[in-house]
């Protein structure tokens, strides 16, 4: 999974050392990626997001799924 190799700085600038691609992540995206890399489930990630960002866990869950689709599109996860 290329996602694990991303070098992400505190401002959300991500560099893929394999392909040289760069991405910009917002605060929520950084959080999701960090939790995904730790191997947390979509539900668990959504739960943590809802606690931190004042959204319902269902809304957060949908956002996590949506974000994962984006990662697939960029080839960062399979």
């Amino acid at each position: 999974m290329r996602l694990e190799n991303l070098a992400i700085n505190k401002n959300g600038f991500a560099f893929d050392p394999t392909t040289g691609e760069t991405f910009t992540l917002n605060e929520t995206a950084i959080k999701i990626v960090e939790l995904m890399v730790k191997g947390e489930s979509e539900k668990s990630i959504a739960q943590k997001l809802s606690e931190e960002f004042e959204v319902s866990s269902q809304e957060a869950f949908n956002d996590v799924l949506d974000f994962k689709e984006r990662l697939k599109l960029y080839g960062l996860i399979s």
Partner: protein
Amino acid sequence: MIVAVSGINDTDNPGPGIGIARSLKEADGNIKTVGLSYDIQDPGNYMDFLIDKSYILTYPTQGWEPIMNRLLHIKDSFGLDFIIPALDAELPQYIKYQKELEDFGIKTLLPSMEQFELRSKEHLQSVSETLGITYPKTVKVFNTDQLKEALKEIGFPCVVKGNYYKAYIVKSMPEALYYFSEISNEWGFPILVQEVVYGEELNVVGAADKEGESLGLVAIKKMTTTHLGKIWNGVTIKHQKLLEVAADFVRNYRWRGPFELECIVKDDEITLIEINPRFPAWVYFATGVGINLPYRVLKSAYGDDVDRRSDYESGKVMIRYTYELITDIKKVSAFATKGESDE
């Protein structure tokens, strides 16, 4: 040690010579560099902080003899131990006459003619198969009827390119016809019609000693390019499969001397676009991240032990920039009248 480099046209379509000279000077300040130029206005002729002495040569199309005589004149008058030719058009002659040069005490480290021919688009298909990577669907054409047939087969958009030089993405028949004429007028036939491959443009620079053993590799991604597709900014990467393909290339063909592989990569699928049997213009980028290939080539040609590691870091960025050098018309006139710089 006196080393001559060509390709000192450090313009918006730069040759590799200045990067080579800079790499050599940084490795060993005692190395003297000679610029081999085809144009009195080549910036390298005036960059005396990297090129110690410059000479104007006749074009390779005029044949080998005047070039050889010029090189012998350089050897007699200034000294010349080693040449790193860096332009496509002159490489076949240097390759063909490398033994003759050696007999006159001028060393090179170049591929054989068979290895040089691998770069021909006709051979890239089989090279790709040998390396376990892909090559874009390509049709060779010699006239406009064949071009139209090929365009029907491959469809738009596609790439219209010369066998060795120039490539344009075309989206329509008029565009295809225009570039077909432009490239064939300049470089002759065949013209190739090739499918467009999508993905990241990743390149590897490398070199091998005279035994065909690697002297090091560096992979990069072009971040921005000029309108001619030349790298302007780039970043080092560690694409393991791409680096393995480059190592296989050296091993399989027992490559000698410098090379560059140009590839398009999508996930793990690697498509070979070009083999350049010389250093690329961005060769100093590799030097800047610790892999000084021109110096390794020079040292290995003399049988010295050289560092062969490729332990550079990914995420190092090259930023190319423009620069104005102010000089005197006397220096231009020295080239115009004597064909060489004043010492």
